[in-house]
């Protein structure tokens, strides 16, 4: 899809599936998940569990008594990584890797606008990760779990989340336009 008559499609946007085809394929994966499991896809839950496990390796007591992390460390419970979503995200890494290799698309680098520096971009990636990470905990999910999966089942909170995410990002985009231009 071209950005406009004067713009050429850049390298990094070439060679992918038609977005509607990719969307229908993704929708069928989601549909299969609902049919098999009754729940949808997810991702941020695995990040939260990773954060808990890493913190637990350093300060087990503090994590087990923490008001939020203790739900991952119930007495007699399974290890936090023995979890549907953690295994699913492991599959995402493997499936993504196979897709990258078969398309010969492994290109090490830092995704940034043509006039943005590497260091500022990495600082902003970290900062964005922190803010987004906190956001996923309040929203109890992210683009996969809430927007896509909750959205497909027409859950009210998921639609509210999705609308707020995109409204905020479209407004905030102006202030970080140099990062991406």
């Amino acid at each position, binding site marked *: 899809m071209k950005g406009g008559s004067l713009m050429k499609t850049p390298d990094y946007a070439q060679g992918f599936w038609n977005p509607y085809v990719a969307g229908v394929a993704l929708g069928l994966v989601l549909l299969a998940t609902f049919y098999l499991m009754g729940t949808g896809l997810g991702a941020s839950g695995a990040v939260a569990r990773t954060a808990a496990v890493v913190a637990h390796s350093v300060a087990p007591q503090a994590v087990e008594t923490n008001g939020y992390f203790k739900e991952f460390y119930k007495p007699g419970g399974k290890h936090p990584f023995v979890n549907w979503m953690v295994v699913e995200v492991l599959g995402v890494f493997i499936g993504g890797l196979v897709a990258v290799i078969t398309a010969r698309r492994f290109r090490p680098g830092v995704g940034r606008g043509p006039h943005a520096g590497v260091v500022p971009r990495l600082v902003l990636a970290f900062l964005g990760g922190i803010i987004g990470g906190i956001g996923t905990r*309040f929203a109890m999910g992210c683009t996969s779990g809430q927007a896509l999966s909750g959205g497909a089942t027409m859950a009210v909170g998921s639609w509210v989340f999705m609308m707020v995410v995109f409204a905020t990002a479209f407004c905030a985009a102006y202030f970080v336009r140099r990062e991406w231009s």
Partner: protein
Amino acid sequence: MTGPLFLQGAFGYEISLVIALVIGFFFGFVLERAGFGDSRNLTSIFYFRDMRVLRVMFSALSTAMVGLILLSWIGLFDYSVLLEFSLLDTYLWPQVVGGILFGLGFVIGGYCPGTAAVGVVSGKLDSIVFLLGMIAGVWIFAYGFSFWGPFYKFSDLGRITLWQVFGTSKEAMAAIVVAMALIAFVLAWLGEKWHPYDK
């Protein structure tokens, strides 16, 4: 067999983990093929350069939504099980606040969690840094949990759907969502012609 299979006891927990791996494989594969392993393709939507995120997400959402209704029509999916046991709960205000933070994190950081995983295997250093930032964000959330814990479960509206809010049937609501998606696809095309940031 009528789904959802796992919730109705068709197979056990170990099998569900095998399914998780297979489902995740296809999820990751399709995300990569959609172009979502690169932060530039994900943030282009916010500058009206390339609206592929909107096209992929809205067509995926519509496919699964309509698919679930069709499956329930032919008796292959029991929608009432989903509504009773697994529909995501609505926590209105925490999800508004979470949405604001997540939207900021998305455009500043360049990824969301699932796409960052695909970014990592595509060799993108910024996606690794983004994921490390997310882990730090979860630590901050957990550290301050005694402070914002009460808000975290505030305004719990339970398992509530759009069609219940708007007082219609789920089929009518799905038709409205599909119509919204089609309008959004036209607006996306117009937005790309406009591309205000590149003039």
